[in-house]
């Protein structure tokens, strides 16, 4: 009895050893594992035709993650980078256009083994999404003001291109000086699920976006008033305000929280035809909203390229100037606030 046990153990130990040992064989030259499956989580598609922008976002994301960029080539669309932190983690990322989209594929190697788990790749793409979004946010803000009033923007100095870095510093100073926003501080605590160490970082992130948005929306408001005076009235007095409640068509500003993205202040243009609602993010082809209106509620689907679809419900305020609601990812794991206020 004892013997059988021992033999079995020996066999298991040997099996475990050979299972993991890297040896010189054809398998080490060719890849192991299911390539189709591995490729699927090494790859993500983005709805943009700007290859350089994606490549630059890849580079800055890698730098944020502690990598040093070794090589980059925009013609073939490759970035290689290494992270040394006692271990040696090397990545190469290729960016390849396909129609109006960019296919981003990442390969990572940890010391002597290829990473074939989905986790690290998901982490990488989460960071890249943020990198592209931060970039996007700048784009959306500077372009949306142009969209609202092209003529007005010629006359007004806008410093919307101001980078977000300045605000990170400011946000950090608030914590050291103890002048932080108590509500946001508490919110940060909830978002990091009670991890005191991450709380500060989360606060800085939230606050920097807030400060950035404040600074970016200020010129937009200024422009809107200037536009009212000079070019086109935003809301002509003759308009029957009650009709705004029945028809939500127009330009709205969003306040979105939750998930991986916070305080997304975007400009969304809605169209209402009968009971059907459609919404487009100004200058951002990533997002589309479709919805059905019933009385003063709208059920919506929110489709975002490269991310899981989301759905939710809004309640329209009696004056038709506000819509309040929440979004939930279809797998139910993420959700957040999705409020809107009317600009025009």
């Amino acid at each position, binding site marked *: 009895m*004892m013997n059988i046990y*021992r033999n079995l*153990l*020996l066999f*298991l*130990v040997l099996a*475990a*050893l050979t299972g*993991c040992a890297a040896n010189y064989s054809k398998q080490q030259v060719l890849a192991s594992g299911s390539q189709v499956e591995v490729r699927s989580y090494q790859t993500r598609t983005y709805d943009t035709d700007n290859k*350089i922008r994606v490549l*630059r976002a890849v*580079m*800055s994301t890698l*730098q944020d*993650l*502690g*990598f*040093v*960029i*070794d*090589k*980059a*080539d*925009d013609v073939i669309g490759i*970035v290689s980078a*290494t*992270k*040394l*932190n*006692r*271990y040696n*983690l090397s990545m190469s990322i290729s960016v390849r256009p396909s129609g109006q989209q960019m296919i981003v594929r990442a390969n*990572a190697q*940890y010391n*002597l*083994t290829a*990473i074939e*788990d989905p*986790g*690290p790749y998901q982490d*990488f793409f989460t*960071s890249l999404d*943020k990198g592209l979004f931060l*970039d996007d946010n*700048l784009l959306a803000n*500077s372009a949306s003001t142009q969209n609202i009033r092209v003529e007005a923007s010629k006359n007004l100095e806008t410093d*919307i*291109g*101001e*980078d977000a*870095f300045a605000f*990170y*510093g400011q946000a*950090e100073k608030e914590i050291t000086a103890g002048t932080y926003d108590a509500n946001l501080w508490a919110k940060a605590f909830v978002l990091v699920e009670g991890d005191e*160490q*991450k709380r*500060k*970082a989360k606060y*800085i*992130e939230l606050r920097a976006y807030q400060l950035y948005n404040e600074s970016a929306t200020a010129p937009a408001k200024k422009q809107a008033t200037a536009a009212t005076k000079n070019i086109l009235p935003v809301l002509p007095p003759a308009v029957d305000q009650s009709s705004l409640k029945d028809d939500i068509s127009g330009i709205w500003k969003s306040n979105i929280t939750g998930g991986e993205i916070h305080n997304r202040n975007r400009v969304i243009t809605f169209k209402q035809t009968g009971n059907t609602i459609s919404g487009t993010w100004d200058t951002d082809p990533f997002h589309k909203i479709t919805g059905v209106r019933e009385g003063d509620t709208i059920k919506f689907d929110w489709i975002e390229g490269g991310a899981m679809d989301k759905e939710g419900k809004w309640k329209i305020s009696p004056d038709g100037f506000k819509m309040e609601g929440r979004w939930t990812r279809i797998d139910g794991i993420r959700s957040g606030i999705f409020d809107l206020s009317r600009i025009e």
Partner: protein
Amino acid sequence: MRYSWGLLLFFTVVIGGCVTIPPDALKLSPSSLADRQLQTRIYEDVTEQQILSASVGIIQDLGANITESETDLGLIVGEKMRDATDPGQVVGAIILALMGGGAGTWDKMQKIKFSLVTAPASSEQDSKRWVVRLTIQRIVWNTQNQVSRREAVKDPEIFQGFFEKLDKSLFLEKQS
């Protein structure tokens, strides 16, 4: 009782046999914002090309070879091999050896890599503000040619020194 040792061995092999990546290796760390601030400067009223060519000069001043450059994406990479002998470490190793600790090893040489990336500070077509970010890494080998350290260099003085030189160089470039 005997096979419990075998079991222990089995689990050690199963757990330790496969090297796995640390779970936070590809996540933003709490220090990544501070690192970014340390490694980044913003320059105004310059072209990306001016920054890149000035940076090449400075990396050369540091004694490194330029190993990679990409102008469309704004990247310069340079490397240098240097002595890594630390007198303190050598003395320590010798004392250890004298006390019977076996042949001592100490750090012998290091490869230092500089990587500089420029990016437009705003998304306008012809941005005049550029974000310049420098990252540095080093690998250290000991006297037995084993890698003894692999790490990112995050010494604030190094970055300050580098960007001061870049400031001057860009200023001169604008004057000429």
